[in-house]
């Protein structure tokens, strides 16, 4: 039985309070931004760019075919002065909208990231049951507890989507588009009522199925026969099917529709890969923490080694999808597709390519060795690198469409991240302290307790 430690409680509550303060600051300062602030920002940026142009060679702009700046210069030359002033005004207004969007987008990145981690833990749990895996049963209660976060974060996420639908923010531009033939063609899917109903089905379905599966798992602890386990198995299979269908819809609805003209057929898989890496990493970190505190005495280094293998494997899977999406669009070179990467290349260059370094090369090189995967220090460091990398991944998915070139990582972003980490820890550890730490009724328990990967020494 886990005791909800006072230190964790204090840290979690402190993170939540700090996060609320940060987000409140972000919302208040974001709301009070005026057109003058936007103009100031544009001037600042132009001065910086002019400075860069003086110093740097042109090589940076020649790689991706469309050079936005040259086109701008060309346009400005042909236009009259009046039009130029008008264009400037519209640009300033555009930047102002971006500044207004920033606290909402910062909130959304952190919320979505932590929601997907919680959901990913639940999916990993379901995968273990669905495959009748033997090794992971000792970790089931940790997975069950931390997937409890899909309830509070899911509700907050739904409130956020409601706020978007009721015009409190302008993240989803397709809600306000007029005379747009592309969006009219997509309107059977992308319309506000259907969008909200789908969101309710996704989040409600996950919460309901998780509740049933967990209840069956707890019932099995006391049961004399295996009916509860068998029923739980059936619901788990239903959950996996439901998840695989709804995850695509979720990715399209909440993330891909931020760039409503753009599309990529493997985008849902891409988000799934990112989710699974982050979720398994969080699970590994929590397992190591609890083991260090002496609660999971039945977990041995073979279990940790397996989690490390999953971190390693899904990192490569993520990189494969990242590259598949990037390379096909780069090669086909169709303007309606390349615009997505052109913007990231121009405005998010270091983040966009830096995350490949964080998410592929470190885990690839360091986690490849068999002994590294059972070493607490190495897995912790690689895990933290991976979590930073995948936060950046979600950041680069969401920010360019909502905040665009006005992005920074400041108090609103940090506040939202701290708030949701605090919430995640608080809810997860509280749920963990409610039930015994070993799902002792599970029929595969013996296999998991005896688990020993043959070349490892314990």
């Amino acid at each position, binding site marked *: 039985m886990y005791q909800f430690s006072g230190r964790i409680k204090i840290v979690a509550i402190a993170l939540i309070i700090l996060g609320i303060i940060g987000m409140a600051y972000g919302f208040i300062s974001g709301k009070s931004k005026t057109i003058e602030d936007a103009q100031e920002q544009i001037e600042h940026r132009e001065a910086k760019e002019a400075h860069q142009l003086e110093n740097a060679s042109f090589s940076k702009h*020649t*790689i991706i*075919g469309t050079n936005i700046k040259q086109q701008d210069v060309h346009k400005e030359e042909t236009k009259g002065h009046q039009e130029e002033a008008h264009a400037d005004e519209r640009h300033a207004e555009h930047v102002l909208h971006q500044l207004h969007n920033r606290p909402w987008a910062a909130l959304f990145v952190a919320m979505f990231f932590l929601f997907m981690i919680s959901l990913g833990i639940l999916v990993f749990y379901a995968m273990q049951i669905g495959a009748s895996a033997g090794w992971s049963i000792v970790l089931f209660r940790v997975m069950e507890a931390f997937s409890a976060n899909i309830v509070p974060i899911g509700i907050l996420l739904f409130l956020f989507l409601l706020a978007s639908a009721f015009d409190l923010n302008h993240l989803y531009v397709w809600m306000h588009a007029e005379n747009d033939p592309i969006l009219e063609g997509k309107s059977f899917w992308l319309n506000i009522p259907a969008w909200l109903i789908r969101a309710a089905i996704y989040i409600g379905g996950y919460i309901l199925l998780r509740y049933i599966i967990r209840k069956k798992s707890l019932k099995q602890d006391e049961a004399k026969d295996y009916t509860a386990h068998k029923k739980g198995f059936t619901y788990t299979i239903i959950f996996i099917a439901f998840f695989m269908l709804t995850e695509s819809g979720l990715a399209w609805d909440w993330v891909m529709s931020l760039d409503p003209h753009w599309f990529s057929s493997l985008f849902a898989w891409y988000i799934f890969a990112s989710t699974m890496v982050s979720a398994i990493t969080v699970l590994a970190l929590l397992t190591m923490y609890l083991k260090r505190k002496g609660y999971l005495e039945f977990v041995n280094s073979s279990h940790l080694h397996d989690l490390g293998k999953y971190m390693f494997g899904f990192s490569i899977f993520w990189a494969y999808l990242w*590259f598949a999406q*990037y*390379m096909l669009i*780069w*090669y*086909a*070179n169709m303007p309606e597709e390349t615009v997505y990467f052109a913007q990231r290349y121009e405005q998010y260059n270091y983040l966009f390519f830096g995350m490949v370094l964080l998410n592929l090369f470190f885990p690839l090189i360091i986690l490849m060795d068999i002994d590294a995967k059972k070493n607490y220090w190495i897995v912790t460091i690689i895990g933290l690198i991976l979590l930073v990398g995948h936060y950046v991944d979600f950041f680069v998915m969401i920010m360019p469409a909502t905040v665009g070139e006005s992005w920074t990582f400041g108090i609103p972003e940090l506040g939202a991240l701290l708030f949701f980490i605090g919430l995640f820890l608080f809810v997860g550890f509280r749920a963990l302290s409610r039930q015994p730490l070993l799902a002792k009724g599970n029929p595969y328990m013996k296999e998991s307790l005896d688990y020993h990967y*043959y*070349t490892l020494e314990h």
Partner: protein
Amino acid sequence: MTKKYFQVHALYKDDEVLMNAVKDIRKKDYEIEEVFTPFPVHGLEKALGLKRTRIAITAFLFGITGFITAMAITNYTMIVDWPQNFGGKPNFTYTQNMLAFVTILFELTVFFAAHLMVITFYLRSKLWPWKEAENPYPASTDDTFVIEMEVEDNLDDVKAFLEKTGAFQIDVADKTIEHYV
């Protein structure tokens, strides 16, 4: 000078029994010459105290060879010899066009590593096509596990000990090596 010894073959029917037998024999400080099994037994190499394989190092070197080969091929055929233009991509520099070749780089790396590793393994194990089998009992490719030992004296003790470890059959042959130094 000649050396006379007995070649002892102990036959087992089960891999668990074999594993325990190997551990017990090594604990007794008897030397095991060779073990023949129908399939790879997990953990046997550890029980026998074999050194860790170095094939991973060769795999890494072969992989690098493949990577460099693929770079040379793509650079020569697509950039140097005849710049190929697909979809208006920059085709006069390698770095700007490298994305298009990543698949080839990857595939040839894997190809070289995998095939050369198998060939290395065969060479190292002295295996080639039509080589005659060295296992003393054909049944050791089917359902029998064989431990081979060389014993110079106290043969009866060894036989009694092997019997205790669960061997269902123990064969002894006289062997002589000429010109033993």
